[in-house]
Structures are given as structure tokens and as C-alpha cells.
């Protein structure tokens, strides 16, 4: 494919590809790369939101303060807990929903469309309605808990150091599991039904058919899904910010929330930029690890 597509037309030179990618390259340099450099520079300064240009160079001070501070370390732990829970629960639920929607039944097409609706709902609206659902006195969530006799039915979910993170997670999972379901459902279309039948005839139970036939086929999609859900969870802002502002006492204070608080609540752009740089490094590290792991798995698969 590479050889055939490399040919150029008589009316164009070898710079045509560069003309084609030039505008977008310039755009990304301007709106992604330049901000990134700016962020790196800002992170070495003490800069106030009120005077973005009047920063003074402080070297590594922002980073030192962050690492020494309790808030930042807690925020790393919260980010890790939130991210792992999001990925595991969204993929688990997504897989379950995809398997359910993969088997034929009447109205399956409608069901598939309906189940993806949460994914299309604007996060701000989701935060709004879940804050109302979790309202301590009038929220329907507590009403249901009380009707089933649970003691937690009187708790103030979003104001509780123990319950705020679970509440934010419920809202998040509700919003993102449909995406996992859609991706896994698409991957399931590639599962060979002959292999499945053959395995069933050989007497394999449902679980072992899943392990031997279904899982190997969908595994690459699930791996990539894991990467995307991880990165998205690390950078999710609106839902968490609007439901809890990172509180109470930092219980939902992820890296991105910490960044926003530093920059736009405490008005310390330098400190916020340092949080941002750490977040960028974490995201890139995860991407690298992902590629390393998948490449190794591919090689192992080839040599088999």
C-alpha cells in the first residue's frame, strides 16, 4: 500500500504533502505546543492571575512546595483512586451491557441507541441533575435508600468525606459506561460465531467460551479503551468541579481540580502551571506504558 500511494501527480511537487499538513501543524504549534511551553515557563515563576505578565522567576519552588504539601499528595491519591474506579467500573458495566445487547432480541436497535444517551448528555447538565438526585433531604437517591431501610439514606452525600467520591463516581460511570459499551459492542462483531459454536459443541461452558474465543478478539479494543478512559478520567473537570469543587476536605480533589483551585481560586498561576506540568507528564507516562505493554504483547503474540 505504501509504494502505490506514494506517487505524485504531474502537476505537483514534493512539497504538496507539506502544503496539506502545513495549516494544521501551524495551528497545533500555536494552540497546543506554545501553551505547553508557556505552561512549563510559568511553572518556574510566581505569577498572579491578576497580573499574568508580571511573574518573577522562582526556579523549582512551586514544585518543591507542591510535593511538600499535604493537599497535592492527597490529590495524587484521589486521582489514582478515581481513575482506577472509573476505568474498572466503566469497562465492567460496558462489557456487561455490550454482551446483553449483542444477543438478538426484538427492539435491539432501539435499545442500543437508548443506552448510549448518557454519553450524549452535556456534563454540566449531568452534574446539575446528579447534585439534585444526591441532595440530602429532597434527593431521590436518599429517598430510595430510606425506602429500602438503609441508614445511609439520611447522609449528605456530596458533603461527606466518605461518600462524596462514590457519589461523583456514580455520576461519572453513568455518563461514560455507554461509550465503553459501544466500543466493546463494535469489537464483538468481529467475534467468529463458528468458533463460538465449535467451542460450545466441544462442551465448553459459557465462561470458557468467553475466555477462549470472545475475549482474545475484543482484547485489543478493551486495551485501547482502557487507555482512553484513563486519560479522560485524569482530565475530567466539569462533572467533579460542579458537584463538589474537590471537597469536602479534598475528598474529590483530583489533579485537574487542584490545578483549577490553585490558578483560579488562589490566583496563583505559577503553582497551577506546576500542577499542570505534572499532570501532562503523568498522562504521557501512561501513554508510553500503554504502548510498551501493547507492543510487547503483540511481539509475544507473533512469536507464538
Amino acid at each position, binding site marked *: 500500500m505504501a509504494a502505490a500511494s506514494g506517487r505524485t501527480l504531474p502537476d505537483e511537487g514534493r512539497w504538496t504533502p507539506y502544503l496539506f499538513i502545513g495549516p494544521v501543524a501551524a495551528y497545533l504549534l500555536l494552540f497546543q505546543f506554545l501553551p505547553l511551553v508557556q505552561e512549563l515557563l510559568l511553572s518556574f515563576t510566581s505569577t498572579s492571575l491578576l497580573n499574568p505578565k508580571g511573574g518573577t522567576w522562582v526556579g523549582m519552588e512551586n514544585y518543591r512546595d507542591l510535593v511538600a504539601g499535604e493537599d497535592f499528595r492527597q490529590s495524587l491519591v484521589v486521582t489514582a483512586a478515581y481513575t482506577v474506579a472509573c476505568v474498572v467500573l466503566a469497562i465492567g458495566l460496558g462489557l456487561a451491557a455490550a454482551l446483553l445487547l449483542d444477543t438478538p432480541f426484538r427492539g435491539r436497535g432501539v435499545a442500543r441507541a437508548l443506552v448510549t444517551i448518557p454519553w450524549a*448528555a452535556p456534563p454540566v447538565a449531568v452534574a446539575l441533575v446528579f447534585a439534585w438526585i444526591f441532595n440530602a433531604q429532597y434527593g431521590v437517591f436518599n429517598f430510595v435508600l430510606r425506602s429500602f431501610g438503609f441508614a445511609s439514606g439520611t447522609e449528605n452525600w456530596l458533603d461527606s468525606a466518605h461518600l462524596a467520591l462514590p457519589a461523583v463516581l456514580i455520576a461519572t460511570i453513568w455518563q461514560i459506561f455507554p461509550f465503553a459499551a459501544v466500543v466493546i459492542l463494535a469489537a464483538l462483531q468481529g467475534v467468529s460465531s463458528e468458533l463460538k459454536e465449535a467451542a460450545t459443541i466441544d462442551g465448553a461452558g459459557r465462561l470458557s467460551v468467553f475466555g477462549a474465543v470472545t475475549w482474545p478478539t475484543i482484547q485489543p479494543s478493551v486495551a485501547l479503551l482502557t487507555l482512553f478512559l484513563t486519560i479522560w478520567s485524569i482530565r475530567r473537570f466539569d462533572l467533579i468541579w460542579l458537584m463538589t469543587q474537590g471537597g469536602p476536605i479534598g475528598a474529590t480533589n483530583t489533579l485537574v481540580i487542584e490545578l483549577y483551585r490553585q490558578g483560579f481560586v488562589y490566583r496563583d498561576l505559577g503553582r497551577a502551571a506546576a500542577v499542570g506540568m505534572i499532570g501532562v507528564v503523568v498522562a504521557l507516562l501512561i501513554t508510553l506504558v500503554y504502548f510498551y505493554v501493547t507492543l510487547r504483547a503483540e511481539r509475544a503474540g507473533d512469536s507464538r
Partner: protein
Amino acid sequence: MTGASHGAGHLLRLAAVLGVLLAAAFPLYWMFVTSLTTSASLFAVPPRALPDPSQLGVYAEAFQTIPVARWLRNSLIVAAGTTVLSLALAVFPAYAMSRFRFRGRGAMGLGLFATQMLPEAMLVVPLYAIFADVGLLNSLGGLILANTAFTVPVITWILKGAIDGVPLDIEEAARMDGATRVGIVLSVVLPLVAPSLAATSVIAFFHGWNEYVLAQTLISQEGLRTASVGLASFVGELSTPVHSVMAIGVLYTLPAIAFYLMVQRYVVAGMTAGSVKG
């Protein structure tokens, strides 16, 4: 397996499907029900489970007392602008990445992927500083420019995947007829990747419509607020009646859901054609 246990399994599965659908639908249904609840029964126990049609006036009232129409208009401008600019920027590089072998292609691919991985909220601080510098704060155009930076990489990536699937012979035929490369891209290739164009338009549109953190930081002028920022100002605030706030939530959510349901076939097809597969 006997017929009876097969039937029971089937019923169980249907019940599970219904459960998933109910869970997926409930929060948005609840937003709608709350918007159509009288002030008196807002705080009733048990909560009212069905919408009260006599309360439709809440919507008219919301339009009169809160600048919802202007917020929605601003959101529409940002979403449409982001869509147009993203596609205009992405089509030719997607074609080049798919069809040409050139020096720097690998670096470009890596750059596109890496920017997809950059957490956008993490760039809010420098974007704010830069926009303040060049006078792009408080401008819907500036917001469109910022949004597009986060949609272009993924859109280029999806379109490249789709163009990979267009057979070269079709282009060769047009070439014989003397078409230029630009002409081929516009009149031969683009129509063939229409589903992916639809999918990417939807991705860009939703990004612009939903986006909150950039709109919140880059815009402070009341009249330029988008619906996401306007609605967010009510979250957790109790002086505005809950049903009015939920009505605004419905007005902001409903167009997105309706639009999504109209195009969801294409989105799913287009996403799975190239995007997430990388």
C-alpha cells in the same frame, strides 16, 4: 438445554436489558420531571414521579427571567464554529497522512496522537495567559479557536482512518480525467467518506456545545456566556427555584440528545471505522 430454562434465561436477559435502559434513562427523566413539578411538591416525600403538564409555564418563565435564549445562541455559535473550523483544518492533513509518504510524517502522526493525550484542563492556565496577551479573552471567536485545538487531532485521526479505506483506483480514474489533487480530495474522496465526516462533525459539535472549563475561564462578559457556563452558575445554588434550573437543564440537554439520536448511526459507524482503533 430445555425449552423452559431457555425461556427463563431469555426473560432474565430481557429484565437485565430493561434494568440497564432504566438506569441510563433515569437521571435525564428526573431532570425533566423536576422541571415540571410545582414549587409545593418539589420537596415532597415521596418525590413526585410523573411530570405535571400544568407546569409548562416554568419554561416560558425561564425564557423571560433568565437569558437562556442568548446562552443557547452563544453555545450554538461556538459549537457550529468549532465544527466548521475543525473540519476545514483536518481534511487535507488527513488526506496527506493517508496517501503521501513524506519526511516528517511519523512525527506528525506522533504529534497528533500526543495532543489527543494532553489533558485540556491542564492547558487552561497558559491559554488564559496567552489569550490575555493577544486580546482574545471575552470573544466567542477566541473560544472557537481554543476548542478547535482540542478537536482537530482526533478528527484528523478519524478522517485519515476513513480515507485509508478508499480504494486508490477511484482516484486514479479521476486523475486520468485531468483532475488536480485538491479537486480529487474535494469531489472524489470526501463524498466517499461522508459517514466519517458526519461522525467527526458530531464530535466537534458536541465538544463545542458541552465545553465548560475554557468557556468559564476565557469568557467573563455576561452577554457572551455559553449555556454550559450559564447553567453551571446554578449548580448547588438555592435561590433560584429548582424547577426553573432543571427547565434550563432540559433546554440545554434536549437539543444535544435529539441531534445525537438523529445521527447516532453515523457516529457509531464512523467512530468504529477509524477513530478508537487508532
